[in-house]
């Protein structure tokens, strides 16, 4: 008995493998089928790439939109390639671990030497720049310089300096402080003092990002250009006075100054004896790595949203999620429909009656309101991420198996009436054997078509719920569109935000519907033939 059952099972698996192979060939023979297979294959490949390339905590990263790496990207940044379409953009350029240009100990050489001439030798920008310097560096100073070329009529958004310290055990991190000073030397020769601050080494160990400050240079800037404007009005958009020159005395509009910019970072180590600091650094006991990033207004393959999040990465994350949601929901629906449909059709009687009445109720329930209710309830209950999504998927499955059950039941009924099933029964075949040998193999092709048809429904439902404001916390295509909807005033002007996720949703469901149609045309005549 057990032996027989195993035989039946292996036969079924062999049959499935065979039919899968031949089905694949048949699907490939149709143009529509070929197209859908190519799209689905592409989606699977991208999903694998996405799983490999994105960090495992990407959803949490995406949610923390006020933290790096997003804060280091331009806000509402264009995709980088739009420059080939003739749209002027400012590039985002990252200078990672900038090489130290010069370092020395600056001290006054005598009573009249203040600010010391040494300083002018190592950081000539200090004396020449516009801006209020509250500190005069005396001690160990490191200087870093990078250059950035601005060619377009667009202002870069900001300059960020990222400092991170490493120190050996035993170094007193709180006694030594670092004062970063940032100067921007423009192509027209004007030097602006854009940053000054003070951090202990301890603070730098966890990393610090500093952005430009307008208040330092604004007053001298107004005097330099002879403007009739307030600090506030000059500083409304900080990047404009830095990368441009005012067009009128009111400073209501600016024009970019194009050419080569030089960004100078002077790191002044204070709080300890300069020689001791120099020794610590040359021994490698203390090291501060420096990165400078000019934030343009373009970033990545698909630009950024209003918070600077890379939309390409967001889109990439959506691929595996869409496949997982789509397939698991479709698979569950078909599995339930198959089991209940076969039971209902084969056994009939009271079981059939109960299942049919249940189906009557299920197909009459509107899904969306219930999904909304569940979504709001789990949101209030504090569920986020995959658990929340799983609950939504479970509800989707629970109310979607009705249609499949009806189809499977009618196929089962027609197969049950076939002479060879009667013959098998007369020969004494068990119910198990008839169901697995004669009924299920014939339903499988149909079930596959139903499965393929049901894949896009789930992901569209998820996207719809997101747009209605139910936040499960994962960056899906629907979530990205929901974010755009929430900030429609600005987001709708950013085609790179609204267009790609929707296109992917459409491509995804088109591929599966097309594959479903192809499978159906293959399956249909076969069913009729039998």
């Amino acid at each position, binding site marked *: 008995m057990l032996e027989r059952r195993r035989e039946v099972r292996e036969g079924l698996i062999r049959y499935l493998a065979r039919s899968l192979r031949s089905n694949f060939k048949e699907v490939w023979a149709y143009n529509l089928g070929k197209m859908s297979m190519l799209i689905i294959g592409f989606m699977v490949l991208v999903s694998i790439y996405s799983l490999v390339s994105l960090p495992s905590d990407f959803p949490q990263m995406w949610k923390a939109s006020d933290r790096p790496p997003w804060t280091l990207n331009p806000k509402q940044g264009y995709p980088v390639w739009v420059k080939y379409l003739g749209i002027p953009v400012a590039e985002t350029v990252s200078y990672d671990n900038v090489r130290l240009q010069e370092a020395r100990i600056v001290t006054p050489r005598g009573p009249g030497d203040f600010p010391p001439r040494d300083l002018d030798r190592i950081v000539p920008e200090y004396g020449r720049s516009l801006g209020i310097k509250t500190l005069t560096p005396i001690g160990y100073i490191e200087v870093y310089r990078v250059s950035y070329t601005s060619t377009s009529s667009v202002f870069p958004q900001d300059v960020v300096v990222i400092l991170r310290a490493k120190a050996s055990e035993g170094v007193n991190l709180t006694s030594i402080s670092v004062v970063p000073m940032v100067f921007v030397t423009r192509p027209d020769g004007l030097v602006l003092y854009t940053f000054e601050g003070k951090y202990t080494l301890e603070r730098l160990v966890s990393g610090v990002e500093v952005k430009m400050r307008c208040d330092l240079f604004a007053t001298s800037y107004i005097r330099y250009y002879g403007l009739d404007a307030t600090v506030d009005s000059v500083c409304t958009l900080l990047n404009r006075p830095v990368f441009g020159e005012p067009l009128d005395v009111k400073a209501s509009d600016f024009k970019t100054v194009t050419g080569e910019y030089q960004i100078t970072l002077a790191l002044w180590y204070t709080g300890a004896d300069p020689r001791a600091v120099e020794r610590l650094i040359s021994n490698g006991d203390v090291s501060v790595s420096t990165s400078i990033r000019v934030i343009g207004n373009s970033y990545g393959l698909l630009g950024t949203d209003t918070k600077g999040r890379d939309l390409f990465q967001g889109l990439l994350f959506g691929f595996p999620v869409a496949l997982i949601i789509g397939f698991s929901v479709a698979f569950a629906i078909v599995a339930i429909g198959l089991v209940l449909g076969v039971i209902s059709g084969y056994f009939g009687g009271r079981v059939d009656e109960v299942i049919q*009445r249940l189906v*009557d*109720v299920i197909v*009459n*329930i*509107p*899904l*969306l*309101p*219930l999904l*909304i*209710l*569940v*979504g*709001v*309830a*789990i949101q*209030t*209950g504090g569920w986020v991420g995959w658990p929340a999504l799983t609950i939504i998927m479970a509800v989707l499955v629970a109310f979607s198996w009705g249609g499949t059950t009806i189809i499977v039941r009618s196929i089962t009924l027609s197969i049950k009436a076939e002479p060879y099933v009667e013959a098998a029964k007369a020969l004494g075949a068990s119910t198990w054997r008839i169901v697995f040998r004669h009924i299920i193999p014939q339903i499988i092709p149909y079930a596959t078509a139903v499965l393929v048809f049901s894949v*896009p429904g789930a992901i*569209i439902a998820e*996207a*719809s719920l997101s*747009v*209605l*404001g*139910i936040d499960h916390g994962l960056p899906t295509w629907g979530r990205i*569109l929901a974010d*755009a*909807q929430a900030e*429609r*005033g600005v987001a*709708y*002007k950013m*085609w790179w935000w*609204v*267009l790609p996720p*929707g296109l992917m*949703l*459409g*491509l995804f*469901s*088109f591929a599966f*519907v*097309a594959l479903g149609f192809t499978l159906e045309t293959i399956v249909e005549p076969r069913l009729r033939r039998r």
Partner: protein
Amino acid sequence: MPLDRRSLRIIGFRAITLSVTLVLVLIMTAIIVGATGYDRVILSAIIREEIRQYREELTRPGSGLPREEVERLVAEYREYLIRTYGLDKPWYQRSLSLIPKVIVLDLYVSQAEVAGVVGLSPPVKVGDAIAVALPRTIVMITIAYIVSALIAIPLGPFIAYRRGSTLDKGIITYAAITNAFPTWWIAMLAVALSGFYLGVAPTSYRPIAKLISDFTSNLLSLDVAGLAVVFKDILYYSYLPILVVTFATLGGWLYSARAVAIRVVSEDYVMAAKARGLSEGRVVRRYVMRVIAGPILTFVILGLAGSIGGYIITETVFDWPGMGLLYYASIAAGDSPMVLALVYVTTLVYIAARFILEVLYVILDPRVKL
């Protein structure tokens, strides 16, 4: 048309199934809100509202109650309410008390901004808010459906006659594309393109609420000139939503009209009519259209009930102040009584629509079996 006993039995059976469905949905709703603790939020909102009313009553000028007395009474009343609503009991005893209130919509909107969507200020009963929003949704869908029908029904046979032509292929592609993309995303693109990039359509549709009320008041006062002005504004605010919904639904309509027509145009009597030398237009009008109009209407109208949900989201995208925006606002503001009422009313509308359509179906097609 008089109904025979068989049809009546079918209709009666449908009515029972649908009522059972509604009851089951209510029970499920109770379980969902109860098991997740969401009903606690809803009941607290109800109690807050009732206490507010009670306090107002107590502190009415002339009641002469000292403040301590008022506070004592309010605290007592709160205790009483907590006991009545079962907030001190486990959820399965408590949630059931919510159901009767939902059925008669005896709930209040708890957040002011939600009431603002329909242009009312609190205290607002959820039923009143829905009564304002629901017609706006139905009007938009109905107009788009009528436009689709007017295009699809005459065009169906025309395409069916040209099966396999470029036009036919184009229509199928169009149907496949609009089927693949969610309507609300097409709406997003339309708003972005014509509202934000080209500036030929509004970017927010909320003013339509005021325009509709202006329209009715002008209509009542028979102010023809004012009516024309308001109508022009209404047209400005409504052309894009109607266009988008029509664009998105037309594909499906054309596809099903074509499918029905293909079956009919190859029928013998149509062939015979053609053989008699009648013109194509005459054959279509006299012999094809009459037959296909019924099936197409029932077929697609049955889909209407199912697509109400989809329009809710499309509305949100347009900021169109109907059911969709009401949903969006109450989810965003955490207005739980409103969410519950909306779920109930949407289900009710869906089930009622389904019932009416199934009755129509039985009447139009006597072959329908149980």
